[in-house]
């Protein structure tokens, strides 16, 4: 078997649903044996991209080679080497955890005693042995996600697609899923993971593609993405939220960049390129009777990267979308 350098190479993938340009020319290069993060807000086209790459829907245009197979012409061969954990639970809620895994084992050629053995090994590794005989509909969110991922690993694939694997999970369950992803890559599987969480991509992914409105708007390692935004971010915490408006104006005048108001009503941040000028500008605040509670000058977070790339924060974007509906 050949081992191409890239597990996924796509060029100009397009999928439109009527007037909705869900995916509008996506180019990806995913190095084999790594975690690749696809980051984007709601409706960016993440799921549609994954569904195309996993052979569930045919692209309207563009081409892709996945694990050396042509996506459209060699879908059958490809399905033998990939696995998908969809965004919405892809387990049978009526069946027990063990039955779900046994069904997939049977479908993929396990026979006799091996069917149950494989199911039980997976249940144990994913901390689900106690729930083996419970119906999946009675699982907690975290258990269901783990079962869902286990179901994708009945035959360990060369490439695994995880569509928003931690959305809606508590921090502990999220950590468990992260542990699974790390273990998988450690053992040689390439993982393409979509997420809306910037810290998740930062934490797991070797490289990240930021997508919005169906196109890739930035690509690179998390450090590169951060660097592309500026040398760093000045975070300022004010004593009194009432001063934020004025502080923003003043800093914007001095530094020539837009101030970004954070969720904390007393906090704001700015992208800065020159630390000396930032320090001077900061000193202006107390002189203008704006008491500062604290400040820091650090690497930008991915949230800020997103802001810099799209002019909107991921959260705002979601709100806008909800308001529009």
């Amino acid at each position, binding site marked *: 078997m050949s081992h191409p350098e890239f597990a996924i190479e796509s060029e100009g993938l397009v999928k439109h649903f009527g007037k909705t340009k869900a995916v509008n020319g996506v180019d990806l290069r995913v190095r084999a044996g790594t975690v690749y993060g696809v980051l984007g807000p709601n409706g960016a086209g993440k799921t549609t991209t994954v569904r195309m790459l996993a052979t569930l829907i045919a692209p309207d245009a563009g081409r892709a080679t996945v694990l050396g197979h042509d996506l459209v012409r060699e879908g059958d061969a490809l399905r033998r080497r990939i696995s998908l954990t969809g965004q919405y639970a892809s*387990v049978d809620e009526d069946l027990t955890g063990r*039955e779900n895994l046994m*069904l997939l084992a*049977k*479908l993929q050629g396990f026979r006799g005693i091996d069917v149950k053995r494989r199911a039980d090994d997976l249940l144990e590794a*994913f901390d689900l042995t106690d729930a083996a005989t419970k119906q999946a509909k009675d699982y907690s969110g975290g258990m269901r996600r783990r079962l869902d991922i286990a179901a994708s690993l009945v035959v360990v694939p060369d490439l695994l697609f995880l569509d928003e694997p931690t959305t809606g999970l508590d921090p502990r369950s999220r950590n468990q899923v992260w542990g699974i992803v790390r273990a998988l890559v450690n*053992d040689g*599987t390439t993982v393409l993971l979509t997420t809306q969480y910037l810290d998740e991509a930062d934490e797991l992914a070797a490289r990240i593609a930021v997508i919005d409105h169906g196109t890739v708007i930035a690509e690179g390692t998390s450090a590169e993405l951060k660097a592309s935004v500026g040398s760093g971010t000045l975070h300022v915490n004010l004593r009194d939220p009432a001063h934020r408006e004025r502080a923003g104006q003043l800093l914007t005048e001095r530094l020539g960049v837009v101030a970004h108001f954070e969720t904390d009503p007393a906090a704001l941040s700015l992208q800065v390129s020159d630390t000396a000028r930032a320090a001077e500008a900061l000193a202006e605040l107390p002189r203008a009777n704006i008491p500062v509670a604290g400040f820091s000058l650090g690497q930008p977070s991915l949230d800020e990267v997103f802001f810099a790339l799209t002019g909107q924060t991921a959260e705002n974007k979601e709100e806008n979308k909800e308001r529009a509906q």
Partner: protein
Amino acid sequence: MNGLQPDARLHAVLAARGRPPRVGALSNTMAFGWRALLKIKHVPEQLFDAIITPVMFTVLFTYIFGGALAGTPRQYLQFLLPGIMVQTVVFATMYTGITLNTDLSKGIYDRFRSLPIWNLSPIVGAMFGDFLRYTLSSAIVVVVGIVLGFRPASGLFGILAAMVLLNVCAFGFGWVFTTLGLALRTPGSVMTFSWLFLMPLTFASNVFVDSSTMPGWLRAFVEVNPVALLVTALRGILSDTASWSQIGQALIAPALVTAVLAPVALVLYKRKK
């Protein structure tokens, strides 16, 4: 699992690479048949319909029509019972489409579609699972019938043969509802369309009365109505007077439906997004 270090158990299942040899379409289908049985085990309520409807139909129609149409309910029952068997099972085939439509809207079909298996096996497997429902329904009709005085000339062997023919034909008709289940958006619309289709077929038939007193145009319809042809074949089998041509005629429509609609269902399934 602490989320920081991949632990040993996890590593062990992930290290077990390699895929067993690919299995055939039949094996895939059987696995999905097994899924259907498991679903019945876990959600037995879904069989209520298959149990209650046949009891109701048999008892009600025997006593409602029996006196008027044949002198006594018991005499009428000898005529009615094969018809009720067919009607019950044909109604039950409708659920194939509704269940499929509900099932398709869940994420699990994404998983099935991303597996290296025979495309149609999830659907055909579910249809095989329905055999249990059909067998149960028709067996209940027969038992209730026997309690009320049904005495088939053909004996036990005839009853079994009738049930086999009924299952085979139900599988064929099932493609109509499978196709509707794939083509329509909601379970509700599948139900509506299925009724529109089933009403004329089951009521403009010889289920309840012989067609000889019907007006010519209606008789012409009954003569080619697949449900009526199946009823005729079943009556023949149960009274031990069946001819091969009767059985052959009963099988024509289900065979045609399968030949035409199975490929249509495959296309619809592949197109489904």
